[in-house]
């Protein structure tokens, strides 16, 4: 299986650091590798840090944070080859970087998969930044290159303002799924996706959050590509991930916003696709109906 990479971008102050700390704190046993351009750009909460040496920080729960400087591909290869391996890479882009080109570069590395472009937009600031004479085109290009657009600092604005910003963001990033996060609080599953865990049909943190999930258990073999496409086409979910049986064997489906990918899978895996979306638009019944999609 390829190592998935989520590129996290957004202008300074959009909440990238808060989000990453939140994800590390709630990693639930997933081994995450956080890559940053430079140390100092991201401050990992001190209580999470176990050790620090040049260029590499060890974090509670088997996670690491490391600075890639000018050698993103080299560090991605290091992460891919490390033992024990990592489950997911979170790559924090600089405030003015364009996620699209980073995603493309990540795609060059063998054994690594650009999973999603997650762009953070500060509810209070994003429109101002998008109107700034120096930043405008950079911010708009970032938004446009999002698979998932995470609206942050929602508590700093009124409800009217929030829905107005959300509408505006949808016009700027028509292809992205838009999610709201308060103080970085978004479940890991919604960001990196999850496969069904044995004996656990829904995940704990999700129950209390603004997200909902459902798991698809197709009865027989499915056309993985068609199922993935159908899941990518619906606004009802943001992420879907899991194993399905096909006529050619097991396949792993990844869906992020409108992006999807199907990988052939080796070994034994429980069948099931976890679909996650914002409660406001989530429609479990509809999502379950998609499993009926036939070639």
């Amino acid at each position, binding site marked *: 299986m390829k190592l998935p990479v989520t590129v996290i971008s957004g202008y300074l102050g959009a909440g990238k650091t808060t989000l990453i700390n939140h994800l590390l704190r709630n990693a639930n046993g997933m081994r995450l590798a956080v890559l940053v351009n430079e140390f100092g750009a991201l401050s990992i909460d001190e209580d999470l840090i176990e050790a620090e040496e040049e260029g590499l920080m060890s974090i509670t729960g088997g996670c690491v944070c490391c600075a890639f400087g*000018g050698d993103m591909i080299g560090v991605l290869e290091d992460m891919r080859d490390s033992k024990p391996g990592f489950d997911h890479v979170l790559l924090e882009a600089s405030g003015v970087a364009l996620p699209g080109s980073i995603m*493309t570069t990540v795609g*060059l590395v063998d054994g690594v998969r650009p999973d999603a472009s997650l762009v953070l937009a500060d509810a209070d600031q994003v429109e101002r930044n998008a109107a700034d004479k120096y930043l405008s*085109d950079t911010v708009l290009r970032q938004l446009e290159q999002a698979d998932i657009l995470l609206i942050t600092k929602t508590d700093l604005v009124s409800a009217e303002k929030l829905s107005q910003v959300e509408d505006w963001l949808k016009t700027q990033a028509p292809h992205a799924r838009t999610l709201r996060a308060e103080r970085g609080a978004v479940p890991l599953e919604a960001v990196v996706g999850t496969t069904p865990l044995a004996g656990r049909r829904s995940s704990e943190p999700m129950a209390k959050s603004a997200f909902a999930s459902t798991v698809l258990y197709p009865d027989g073999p499915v056309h993985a590509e068609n199922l993935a496409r159908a899941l990518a086409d619906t606004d009802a979910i943001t992420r879907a991930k899991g194993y399905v049986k096909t006529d050619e064997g097991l396949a792993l489906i990844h869906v992020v916003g409108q992006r999807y990918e199907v990988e052939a899978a080796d070994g034994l895996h429980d069948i099931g696709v976890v679909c996650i979306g914002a409660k406001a638009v989530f429609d479990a019944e509809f999502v379950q109906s998609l499993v009926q999609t036939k070639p």
Partner: protein
Amino acid sequence: MTQTTIFSARKIITMNPNRPVVSHVAVRDGRILGAGTLEELAGWGEYTLDDRFADLVIMPGLVEGHAHTMEGALWSFTYVGWFDRMDPDGKTWPGLKTVDDVIARLKEAEGRIEGPDAPLLGWGLDPIYMNNVRMSRHDLDRVSKTRPVGVLHASGHILNVNTKGLELAGLLKEGTNHPGIPLGEDGLPTGELKSPEIIMPAGKHVGMDRAFLAADETGLRNYARLCVRAGVTTSSDLGQQLNDDLVAMFTRVTGEDRFPVCLVAFRINFGVGPKELVDYTATLADRSTDRLEMGKIKVVADGSIQGFSARLQWPGYYNGVPNGLWYVAPDQLAEIYERALAAGVQVHTHTNGDEATQLTIETLEAALRKHPDFDHRFTLQHCQLASEAQFRRMGRLGMCVNLFANHHFYWGDEHYRLTVGPERAERMNACRTALNAGVPMTIHSDAPVTPLGPLFTASAAATRQTASGRTQGEAQRISVDEALYAITMGAAITMKMDDRIGSIETGKRADFAVLHDDPTEATPESLKDIGVWGTVQGGRIFESSGI
């Protein structure tokens, strides 16, 4: 007991307006005791008269305000550029005019390499002059099919590799979809790699390893030898990720008895946040030595104009491509400026496009309101597209500028035709406007982007000739005298070293460029052809032919 040596010369040009030309200069303890007649200087007491320069012309040691010591490291690899270029040994490598010539030279170099798997790297290729011919992996396969072969372009933004190089980099596969990796008709990459994040990992396999990209001892020594040949006694190394190890290495190498140049090593804003950048660089000032000046920061604000990554103001690029990229977030730039002003650390900022220049001006103006500094001399490096209004504002804010006069020669025709169009091409690197606006100004090579050679750079600013021989921007030409001032005092002022270097007068370091002819008598065109005998640096004599 201190000794005084008095040098005579055919002519000594001082850059000291009080006595612009003298016949003798007295040196004691590596510093200039005085400049004047022999009779005047004899007043200092006992001396030895040294007539070795009697037939030569002395001027202040030339100061290169924007170069990279990597120029020295590159000579460990094979030069394949269009123009003739001199290596640290003084050998001139003829420019190569066709892809076949390039292949032939690489093949020759290939024959000298030991080990069947060792990589081979060429550098300096500039297809602009070869009708933009595209080199492919098949071309480089003619050099070798078994060892990785790479050719780095003059711009540093493109790398060509052979099939073996692609294979080792894991790129020899179909289905690659990346704007920086053009594909051939067979669906496989052509071998041309066009963006830094791809050049880095692929470059590793063709000889551009981490040691190549960072400074190394041999590279520094080779660079210093090139300086002697160019008449340079002080050179910036504009942008190193200085840390204690690198500082120790620089200190050791520049401290060697016969190291012939003073390096001004700037800490670049990569790899660390603004606070650590400024705090660390501030500690370096006190660790400076006679031949290693530190405690200054370089920030990169945008990309390059010919790479279409510079940030331009409206109406943008002449060929209509989208605006370039910020290499620093505007808020981060502001934080660096504020912290640096508060700490008394000087910042030089790379801006190419006029939008990047505008951002730095506005950001500095705001930072200065919080932390007034009446002699900050924050300097814009390249600043190629600045408008008259921008220069006026820079002048009022106390900023300095280092313009890329060589660019005009090497890429001026491209700028006219493609990047910014005729009108703005004529105002690029506007030396005249800078001087009129009272902005302290110097000019540079950005070696290894163009060859180190301040006399060439001065000539380029005085003629404004492009490679095709057109004068581009007549109104921005400066006189030979102004150009000579720019490559001595001008550069010294931008680096806040004008109290020590840049002119020949009492108290300054005994740094001289020793020339075969009088540059003040040269025409703008012939200035570049003046032969350099060598240098005197801190009173030590270095002859090009023996370096």
